[in-house]
């Protein structure tokens, strides 16, 4: 089996695997937000950026190659990664202590992992919509990080095309497949993968918010680094059959 070097250690990979996939299976967590094991790589959040033979690249889109030297934790990279997470916080309206999703939010968990305490940037306080028109699902754009996971899940897994990204630049926004612009007028159902896949609290099932109490939630019990590695390994075992 081929190997590459990740932070000084040899990591085995299979042909066609990305750096991120191989690293996770090897037990080395690289933070990411716009990716989901099993999904086609997207490469937009850039949180998983690593140094490959001295040049930065998103590890979720970069295929592993024999002998490449990958570094994930240089002081510069760690600082840049923390800055990216801070950017995601300042461009939206994130109020962790008051959010239903606290403790099971990947953005929050990644922020803990990268050691973010506050943001070095000025908060933008954008005016964003909240859409409660759907009987079972709440869409809160204040918390959306534009990862596009729901867009891909709805299209590729659910076969529905409920979501899309509209606009451009800092005015990019999650849009839904209805002339009214309301989620209630789409064919989204509470069973859809597009609902589950949201890494933050932007797409939430109604009437479920407090079923698991604070302090006993996913990332309250275990850090995201352990959860992600376990998920990746389980997925790989399943793929092997």
């Amino acid at each position, binding site marked *: 089996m081929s190997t590459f070097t990740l932070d000084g250690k040899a990591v085995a990979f299979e042909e066609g695997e990305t750096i991120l996939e191989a690293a996770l299976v090897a037990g080395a967590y690289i933070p990411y937000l716009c990716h989901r094991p099993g999904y086609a*790589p997207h*490469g937009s959040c850039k949180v998983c950026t690593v140094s490959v033979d001295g040049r930065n690249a998103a590890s979720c889109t970069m295929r592993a190659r024999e002998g490449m030297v990958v570094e994930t934790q240089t002081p510069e990279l760690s600082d*840049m990664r923390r800055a990216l997470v801070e*950017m995601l916080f300042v461009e939206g309206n994130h109020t962790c202590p008051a959010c239903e999703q606290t403790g099971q939010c990947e953005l929050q968990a990644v922020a803990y992992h990268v050691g973010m305490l506050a943001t070095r*940037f000025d908060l933008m306080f954008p005016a964003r919509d909240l859409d409660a028109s759907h009987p079972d699902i709440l869409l809160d754009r204040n918390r959306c990080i534009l990862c596009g996971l729901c867009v891909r899940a709805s299209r590729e897994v659910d076969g529905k095309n409920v979501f*899309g990204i*509209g*606009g451009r630049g800092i005015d990019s926004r999650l849009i839904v497949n209805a002339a009214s612009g309301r989620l209630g007028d789409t064919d989204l159902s509470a069973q859809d993968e597009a609902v589950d896949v949201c890494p933050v609290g932007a797409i939430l099932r109604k009437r479920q918010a407090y079923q698991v109490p604070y302090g006993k939630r996913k990332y309250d019990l275990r850090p995201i680094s352990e959860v992600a590695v376990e998920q990746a390994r389980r997925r790989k075992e399943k793929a092997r059959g």
Partner: protein
Amino acid sequence: MDLAEIVDRAVRRQANDGTRLLAILRDVQQEAGSLPPEAIDGIAAAVGQPRVRVESTATFYHLLHNTSHGAYEVLFSDNIVDRMGGKEELMRYFCDELLVHPDKLSHDGLVYVGSTSDIGMGDHAPAALVNGFALPALDKNRLGLIANLIRAQLPVAEWPRALLDVSDNVRKTGPLLGEPFSPGAGVARAQSMGPDGILAQLEAAGLRGRGGAGYKTAAKWASCRRAVGKAHYVICNADEGEPGTFKDRVLLQSYADLVFEGMTIAALAIGAGRGFVYLRGEYLYLLRHLQDVLARRRAAGLLGAGILGRAGLDFDIEIAMGAGAYICGEESALIESLEGKPGRPRNRPPYPDTHGYLDQPTVVNNVETFACAARIAERGSAWFAGIGTAQSTGTKLISVSGDCKYPGTYEYPFGVTIRQILAEAGASQAQAVQVGGPSGTCVPWREFDRKIAFEDVPSAGALMVFSRSQDMFEVARNFSHFFAHESCGFCTPCRVGTSLLRDTMDKLAAGKGSAYDMQSMQTLMRILLTMSHCGLGHTAAKPVVETMRAFPEAYEHRLRKLDFEPAFDLDAALGTARHITGRDDEWAHIVEDER
């Protein structure tokens, strides 16, 4: 005509083809005045795409809008060169003349006045677009006349030609622009050489791409030729969106044969049957002319089936219009746009030479590169390689604008010094030039002996001149607004970073900057440069960094305190409360202490 009918006709003109979505959206907006939700629904149904995909595309492009912009939409070009020419005051004057507010439709629904990124008229600055057509060289006289024409509701097609005519302003010609050219000469030579001969000739000529990056054209074409696919494509990147650049406009207006000739030679070399010119939306006024030239070439047997009478040699070119997105100058974003999607750069590799338009092998080159290729086919590689420097062969078209007597397009052999260009353009008071537009290089007066060449100061073509009376901080601030406006929003560092950089520059401009802000801009620069998805993000902080280095005093005198000053403006935050209560008296404001 009702909306359903307009949609139906527009969609049928494009054969219900979803990859031609941008053309459909442009047509519907042209006829219906805007793109309301019902139009999106109708288009989506007709091309068989979910409406959310159509809406994604419709909301991405600056020149498309979902509410009416009236019978007359006037968009002022907002590059720094337009501002130096009085854009802001002229726009105020024009709005007052028409009794309208900027960025709002007039009460009678007749006119909309707004701003847009550079429209490629730097030698005619300040300039604007009316219903997509260029209005060069604006002053109060012309704007007064234009306001009268709008009030009289005269269709733009009937306006005096003098208002809409765009002159070339070619100030200096060389072998590319100055020599006579007979259409078909290059194609005939290329045909006799065959694909391998063409590639060998380009290689020997040392031709490098004129769009800025300087990739070897022969290597790109050869790799595309080798790539296996269902079809090969040639794309001419005529999205000339880099502020201050307008040399492709001149090539397309007066040398279109040379450009199409180069594309046809590329098609012969890689085995392509179809080609596209991706023309920026701001150059709408060139569309009719380009279509006429294409028709003439078809009639002459230089395009279409059986070129030059040789059976099986088929190639044709069509023009695809952009709709206001600088990012579409990036080749993979351009291809996305050409496929009817928002112009977001793809993950690379793979590159377009193997996976381009419709995922097939595609050559994408700049307008000027194709023109050079045509000249090389006609006159040979040794001739071309003998011009310029060893690493940068041939000539370069330079668009000169800003503080100079003779703005326009100049053709120089590579290796020309900035000093020489300034002398010939009549720019005696320059303190700096911006070479290659905002994403290029800021060269201060101390370095005017540097050369325009890939190995020294590379350039996509722009050269904006700033005299000693200009404030270099304002130059950089204008560019920071440009990048924030043009970021596609795909990746975090560029989407958020360009806006934060713009906001910090605005904070300094408001006299509220501190040393902390200077440091935070350095951090933003590192993030943009090392973490962004594409070249837009990589270069977005460059103007700020370079002016900070070359003209530190332009920044320092704006710093109020040397340590920290909050961005939060308490008085501004009370604005909503003032609005609600209808108050604006002294006690409704928080007056800051004099410091």
